[in-house]
């Protein structure tokens, strides 16, 4: 009230500034004071206009009908009627602009169009064109008359927006009250410790807030969206009885590939696909019993009618160090007894770890990604157990109707690619790879029981669930932190 004046109406925003309070508070206070007769609140609508894209174009190039007129003058249409085609050609108008020019030409008195010929009224100054002038005025921030504004809006050259501006002035009663001195405590803006201590809160009246208005942005700490997904997957797998594995990212090719019954000349084992290291280059020693057993499996197979690969075997290659192309190297370390001692069935193990592939880096591929890997060891396992286990996993992520397509891996037989229905699009998409580990892999590791295994890229699962489209947003240094900040929490 103190900021308001009896002499003139002032906009509430100005008063709020002067009084040092929020606009919302001031508005609320103004209405309250009005109901008590101390203030008059006036509302009026303010219109403001801005040029559309088309408007901007004509501001620069000139209104089409003006250009047509100038071209017509240039063709001496003020003396004789000139064929329209000639004038239009002269004007440089094209396409829809021609129609616009013609429809406004006669209306604004620039001349006449009749039977394909055009005449121009002499003596008109195009600078007098009211609409062009209005466009320029609006662009400069001024306010032309309402008729012109309506015309320009109808032509789609400007956009008009309205807002309500409230202004207040003191009534006579209000002016008197200010003279007598208004008690500020009557309308409390804020509850303070002092009010609590003195008991002044009991008589205070708290001004209404505009509780609907947005507050300023708070940026909280936040778990990375992919980590969160990894934790959700861990919850599910732990809930299904799986123990977590750990192991090195840099490892010998022996553990990454040879122990998996991958022939040494397999296409995926060259530098196009894997990241061999140049420093350091190889592991000094491998357990010789295990090496012998694995080499024998490669050369001769296992079992009564077993056959091996017709591929070279070189222990030096087995010792070469590389970034693991899959986390199945961890499964090998555990199954062989090296990581957690000799394992007897039943066992369930999983890991979510980085795998590195020399593939490509684009919207759907990364050079390093997270692989979900899980395996189950039991005395007798069947393909049905494999299907049942992994169906359950996907069900917990809302992916149903899982189909198993027969597939091939060098280290599993039978093998299946898993397909599931996308939770949103309903499309059938690949969601994993699985199989029963081959005897040629298990026997050298000393395993007699059956082992079934399955894997999937974590990023793929996340992108399926959230609909994210660019894998670089959800993993790696090329991220946009705004994406991470806004990523929906998923549980």
């Amino acid at each position, binding site marked *: 009230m103190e900021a308001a004046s009896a002499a003139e109406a002032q906009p509430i925003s100005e008063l709020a500034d002067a009084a040092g309070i929020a606009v919302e508070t001031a508005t609320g206070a103004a209405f309250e004071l009005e109901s008590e007769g101390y203030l008059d609140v006036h509302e009026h609508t303010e219109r403001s206009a801005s040029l559309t894209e088309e408007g901007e174009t004509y501001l620069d190039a000139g209104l089409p009908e003006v250009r047509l007129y100038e071209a017509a003058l240039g063709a001496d249409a003020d003396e004789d009627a000139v064929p329209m085609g000639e004038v239009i050609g002269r004007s440089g108008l094209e396409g829809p602009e021609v129609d616009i020019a013609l429809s406004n030409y006669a209306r604004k008195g620039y001349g006449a169009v009749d039977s394909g010929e055009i005449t121009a009224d002499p003596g008109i100054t195009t600078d007098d064109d009211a609409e062009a002038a209005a466009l320029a005025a609006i662009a400069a921030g001024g306010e032309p008359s309402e008729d012109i504004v309506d015309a320009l809006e109808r032509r789609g050259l400007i956009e008009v927006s309205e807002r309500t501006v409230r202004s207040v002035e003191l009534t006579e009663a209000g002016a008197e009250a200010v003279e007598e001195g208004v008690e500020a405590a009557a309308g409390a803006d804020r509850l303070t410790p002092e009010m609590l201590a003195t008991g002044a809160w009991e008589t205070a009246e708290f001004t209404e807030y505009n509780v609907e208005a947005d507050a300023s942005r708070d*940026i909280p*700490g*936040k*778990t*990375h969206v992919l*980590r969160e997904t990894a*934790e959700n997957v861990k919850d599910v*797998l*732990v*809930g299904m*009885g799986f*123990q*977590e594995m750990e192991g090195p*990212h*840099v490892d*010998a090719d022996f553990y990454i590939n040879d122990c998996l019954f991958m022939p040494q*000349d397999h*296409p995926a084992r060259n*530098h196009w696909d894997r*990241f*061999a*290291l140049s*420093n*350091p280059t190889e592991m000094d020693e491998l357990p010789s019993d295990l090496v012998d057993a694995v080499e024998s499996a490669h050369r001769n197979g*296992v*079992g009564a*009618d077993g*056959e091996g690969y*017709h591929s070279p075997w070189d222990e030096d290659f087995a010792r070469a*160090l590389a970034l693991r192309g899959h986390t199945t190297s961890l499964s090998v370390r555990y199954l062989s007894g090296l990581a957690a001692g000799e394992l007897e069935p*039943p*066992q*369930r193990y999983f890991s979510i770890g*980085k795998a590195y592939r020399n593939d490509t880096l684009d919207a759907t591929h990364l*050079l*390093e990604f997270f692989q979900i890997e899980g395996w189950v060891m*039991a005395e007798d396992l*069947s*393909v*049905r*157990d494999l*299907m*049942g*286990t992994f169906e*359950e996993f996907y069900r917990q992520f809302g992916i149903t109707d899982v189909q*198993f*397509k*027969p*597939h*091939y891996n060098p280290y599993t*037989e*039978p093998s299946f*690619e898993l397909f599931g229905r996308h939770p949103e699009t309903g499309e059938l998409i690949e969601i994993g790879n699985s199989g029963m580990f081959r005897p*040629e892999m298990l026997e050298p590791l000393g395993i007699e029981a059956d082992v079934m295994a399955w894997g999937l890229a974590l990023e793929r699962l996340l992108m399926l669930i959230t609909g994210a489209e660019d894998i670089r947003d959800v*993993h790696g*240094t*090329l*991220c946009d*932190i705004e994406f991470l*900040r806004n990523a929906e929490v998923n549980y």
Partner: protein
Amino acid sequence: MPVVEADPDELRRLTGHTEKSDDELKDDLFALGLEFEGETPEGDFELEFAPDRLDRLSVTGIARSLRYQYGDERGVYVPDTASPEWTIQVEDSVPDSRPYVSGAVVRDVNLSREALDALIQLQEKLHATMGRGRAKGAIGIHDVTMLRGEPMYAVGESGDAGEATGKKVTYRGVEPDGDTFVALDDDAERTPAGVLESHPTGQEYADLVEGEERYPAIYDDIGLFSFPPVINSRRTEVTTDSRDLFVELTGTDQWTLDKMCAIVCYALDARGGQIEDVTVEYPGRTVVRPDFEVREKRVAHERIETTLGIELDPEATVDYFERAGLDAEIIGLDGGTGYEVSVPPYRTDVLHAVDLVDDVGRAYGFNELVPRYPDVSTVGGRSESSRFERALRSRLVGLGFEDLLNFHMTNKAENYERMRVTEGADILGGGEAATIAEPYSEDYTMLRTWVLPSLLMVLENNTHREYPQDLSEVGFAAEVEESLETKVAERQSVGGVLARHDASYEDAKARLQALVAGFDAELETPATEHPSFIDGRVADVVIDGESVGVIGEIHPAVLVEHDLEVPVVGFEFSADALAE
């Protein structure tokens, strides 16, 4: 996974099922394990296939698999072969790097344009898979009518040459510039070395033979007609008019060559061809090819039932084997029922009894199996370090940090130079880099030795985003350490940066204090020197008496280098300092 093209109309014709729609065909192919990827402009199906069934690299092979699947064909089929007229003689001069040979003659083949294209596709796909890019095995196919074999004579009783018994070609080693021929798609006579230099195909495969003293070459009576693994001569080029074909294979492994040869023969047999044997004369032994040996493997009935999880009748099981293109005889095995299964020569994937079980499963239809949750009890749990890291990240998030997940691979400029650190210096981040031999690009040549550079790069990429930016990462870092088994020391490192217009050392220290206190550890920060930080505003992070990291105000040179316009404070230390 490689892709093979197959004309759906040909599939309909070859399987005799012209009533099948495109969608029905796609479903049948999916059940075989061939996934539809798209269509070529000519309307051929592009099918992604798996490399265990290389016989399906040709449309005839796919059709054969479909006929078995439909039940229109059953059991093992092996084409008849006629007795040999031709010999491939292998001379001592053949380079040691490519000693083996296989081959066949195929007569009366119907080669339409489509059939010839399919044959070429089969050849190329076999080269790419089993042939290991032609290094392990390469196939040359020639028009027999353009060959003139050297006559071979039986030696008469008196020692003179008797009657002509056949024709031969010789596989020998030739000097790089020792002879000339006109290669396919060429117009001039060139030496083998000349072909490697000037012919596009020669350039592509040059590294397979370069460096040898002698190059592989096959000769008939006229001259050089095949330069494996590179290219054939134009003289023996196969066209749609060719009816009799000479197939030769050379490489480093006999079994591989024989299998490739068998697959080609089966494909040509399906085009009406009559297979004729060839004799291969090595110095010291003679063999007859193609090798259509049918191998026997045994599998126990119980194993099939256990692996598939169903009960089966032996008769039904024999039926499934036959529907997979195998033959099976019920036998006694290991005290129970078993099968002796005959495997045709185009099967390269049957190494063990499990492969037979897989065939039964596919014939039965894996999607007919009802999934069941195994009655196997195990207790699950996270690893200790996993639980610890989760608690650590939780605390960082509680302190207002945006948790990041950055790449482990980086390059020397990012990891060292842009941070003003020298590789090998005895400071945080100075460790020796584990480097990649053939990197994808120069951006990713090593494993990062510390996490702060990644955080600074994220700040660099996000200067258009709202401040303050408080970023942290609990992530992998590694450096060379020869004493370890893998020679690389891998650790989890905790890094944090605060970027804002008024960032100060105290802000970082406050967060670090709160973080460490949460794990009931003691923190000290004695002054130190580190080139990435401002002198006099940097300290060692000492947790429970051990120096494990650094904290300070980032040096302005580093900030300017990263195009940052706000001050940044940060810290990094080894995560396990806080673990129990």
